[in-house]
């Protein structure tokens, strides 16, 4: 057998290619800054900041086509740990992290941290509990993994049906965030911005699947991190002469706390289960920044943090990325990079929120309503902020802010050039598109591999599998676009529902399938259905007002029920066959051939098409 060193699989020029991309992106921003000084029309600057990066992402994707299933669904298992981690870290945050988390931090202060912490804690859980084992297995989707792990086609179909719910919710949420960022950036209607963004992502995915997504999303992640870092660093230098926004926010916090105390901002104490983060509309700033558990209760904070962690760690959107690395060791290492990237982004977003809050309390709080600074009037003009009508002297709860506007409001408030406002929006759009591409790829792969091919004994060859997946991408994109505008829900709420459903439906079955070899197909099916069913039922009760538990926390009921159902049903049904126990034990050992690849190779030797 020919053995290829893992390092030989990785393209050694990747660093050069992405350095060229970073240089091109930086050149675009510098060029736009110069054009702004030359009084070039604003509409041209906006179009350039929207279209040029989008064309670069799509171009990178189209230049990475895939013809074989291994390339289309797993990027040929050639993605280095750093790039995999970079994409994972940014895609895990997505628009919900860049836009909604920043706004939640601005308005709810400390309480918003439950989302950011949950995301990188989820990546830690993924590194320890799931990623190495799913890489060893090598299946392209989670339903495919479950179907093969328990040798049960029905389970595969059930898993595809159950897990498509959180994936679809996440996809819709990211389409809505992309529409918001795109519309703010271009000035177009949200529907048009969404159609253009989704078409660019779908076209690229259709051509190259996971391969196109990986390299295009690497570029998006670099752009998102650069676009986030530049305005935050400039503001940190302006305030502290230190270009480290993550480390300078602490001093400002003390100033904010002092001003809020002297201005008599009240201390609000929320009930333990409260979960009241700001919505999409203009909302009041409810509480002191530093005070814990004023909008989100202590139990609500804990539940949301752990549900986000469980949902992210077992996400059907993110976990298939583990299969793209050259080996198990790289899969683990890539999660280390992912935690680093996501953590630094969370700290920077938090610093953005602190800086903006500081400018707000310093320049707007306690001012006469008719003598507000020009930048606040500018934000009012675009509907991002407002003072409660009839206010004479501004108190904290008279300041109304649009949650998702916080990221681009900072450069406006700091008086930075308009191009840096567009840069912040372009960065948010890039992160949103990375998450959108991951969700669209996951649902298309599930549709093609598990629904179309899942039940057939003799599955078509490589070309048919890739063709079906190519067709599934635009189909799923059209459905997502339609649903995004048919469902008038807050995208953060959709993201939280996706996370809570993923935590309750996906986490228990994945955990038990790796760490408890006695689990059988019936138990796995029971866990999936109970997790989804109970969580959806509790969320429904919550939305109708029948119970006081917030619907975003419904997973705290569904998750233990799913574990319980799996245990009971498994003990009431026959133990797994010896070959499945052997498979479970093979899965736990990093050495040896990837299990899915071994199965495909053996079937080819027998003259059968890969299942």
């Amino acid at each position, binding site marked *: 057998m020919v053995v290829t060193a893992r390092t030989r699989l990785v393209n050694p020029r990747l660093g050069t290619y992405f350095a060229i991309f970073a240089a091109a992106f930086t050149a675009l921003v510098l060029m736009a800054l110069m054009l702004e000084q030359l009084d070039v029309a604003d509409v041209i600057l906006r179009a350039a900041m929207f279209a040029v990066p989008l064309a670069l992402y799509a171009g990178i994707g189209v230049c990475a086509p895939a013809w074989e299933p291994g390339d289309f669904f797993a990027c040929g298992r050639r993605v280095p740990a750093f790039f995999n981690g970079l994409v994972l870290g940014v895609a895990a945050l997505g628009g919900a992290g860049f836009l909604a988390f920043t706004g939640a931090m601005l308005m709810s202060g400390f309480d918003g941290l439950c989302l950011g*912490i949950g995301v990188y804690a989820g990546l830690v859980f993924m590194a*320890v509990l799931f990623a190495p084992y799913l890489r060893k297995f090598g299946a392209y989707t989670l339903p495919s993994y479950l179907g093969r792990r328990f040798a049960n086609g029905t389970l595969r179909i059930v898993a595809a049906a159950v897990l498509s719910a959180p994936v679809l919710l996440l996809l819709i949420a990211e389409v809505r965030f992309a529409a918001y960022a795109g519309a703010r950036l271009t000035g177009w209607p949200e529907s048009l911005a969404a159609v253009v963004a989704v078409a660019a992502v779908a076209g690229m995915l259709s051509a190259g699947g996971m391969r196109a997504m990986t390299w295009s999303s690497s570029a998006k992640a670099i752009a998102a991190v650069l676009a986030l870092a530049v305005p935050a660093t400039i503001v940190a230098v302006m305030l502290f002469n230190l270009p480290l926004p993550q480390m300078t926010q*602490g001093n400002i916090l003390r100033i904010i706390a002092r001003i809020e105390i002297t201005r008599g901002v009240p201390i609000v104490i929320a009930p333990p289960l409260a979960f009241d983060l700001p919505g999409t509309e203009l909302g009041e700033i409810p509480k002191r920044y530093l005070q*814990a558990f004023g909008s989100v209760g202590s139990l609500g904070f804990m539940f949301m943090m752990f549900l986000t962690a469980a949902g992210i760690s077992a996400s059907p959107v993110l976990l298939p990325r583990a299969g793209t690395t050259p080996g198990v060791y790289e899969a683990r290492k890539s999660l*280390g990079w992912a*935690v680093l990237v996501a953590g630094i982004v969370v700290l920077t977003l938090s610093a953005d929120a602190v800086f903006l809050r500081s400018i707000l309390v310093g320049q707007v709080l306690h001012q006469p309503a008719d003598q507000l600074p020009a930048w606040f009037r500018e934000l009012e003009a675009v509907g991002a902020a407002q003072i409660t009508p009839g206010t004479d002297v501004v108190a904290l709860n008279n300041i109304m802010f649009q949650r998702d506007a916080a990221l681009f409001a900072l450069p406006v408030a700091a008086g930075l050039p308009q191009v840096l406002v567009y840069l912040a929006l372009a960065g948010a759009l890039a992160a949103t598109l990375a998450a959108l591409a991951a969700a669209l790829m996951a649902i298309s792969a599930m549709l093609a591999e598990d629904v179309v091919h899942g039940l057939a004994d003799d599955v078509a060859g490589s070309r048919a599998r890739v063709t079906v997946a190519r067709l599934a991408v635009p189909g799923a994109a059209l459905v997502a676009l339609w649903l995004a505008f048919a469902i008038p829900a807050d995208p953060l709420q959709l993201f939280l529902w996706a996370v809570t459903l993923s935590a309750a439906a996906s986490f228990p079955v994945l955990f038990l399938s790796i760490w408890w070899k006695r689990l059988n197909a019936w138990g796995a099916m029971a866990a999936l259905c109970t997790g989804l069913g109970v969580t959806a039922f509790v969320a429904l009760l919550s939305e109708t007002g029948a119970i006081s538990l917030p619907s975003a926390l419904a997973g705290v009921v569904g998750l233990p029920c799913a574990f319980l159902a799996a245990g009971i049903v498994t003990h009431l049904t026959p133990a797994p066959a010896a070959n499945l126990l052997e498979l479970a034990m093979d899965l736990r050992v990093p050495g040896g051939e990837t299990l899915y690849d071994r199965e495909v190779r053996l079937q080819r030797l027998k003259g059968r098409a890969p299942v």
Partner: protein
Amino acid sequence: MIEGEERKAYWLHTKWQMMASLLPFVVALIVLPLYADALNVKRVLGSPLGFFLTCHGLFLIAFTTVAMFVNRQDAIDHWHGAHEDF
């Protein structure tokens, strides 16, 4: 590929490593936010301690947890001969 008793020993070692990695992290996730308000009266690097520990501290603990896990689990793989072949 390792076989028989060595597999059991390897998996036992891996399970302990999983718990040793996650338990302290989970405890920190629970304890630090709950005591943030009480700790905010003290300062570290100019920042209120409770907020600093929840915002920066948990991130540092998360990254250290993963880094140590990757390092130790790789050592366990090599110790039991369960590492990848190439």
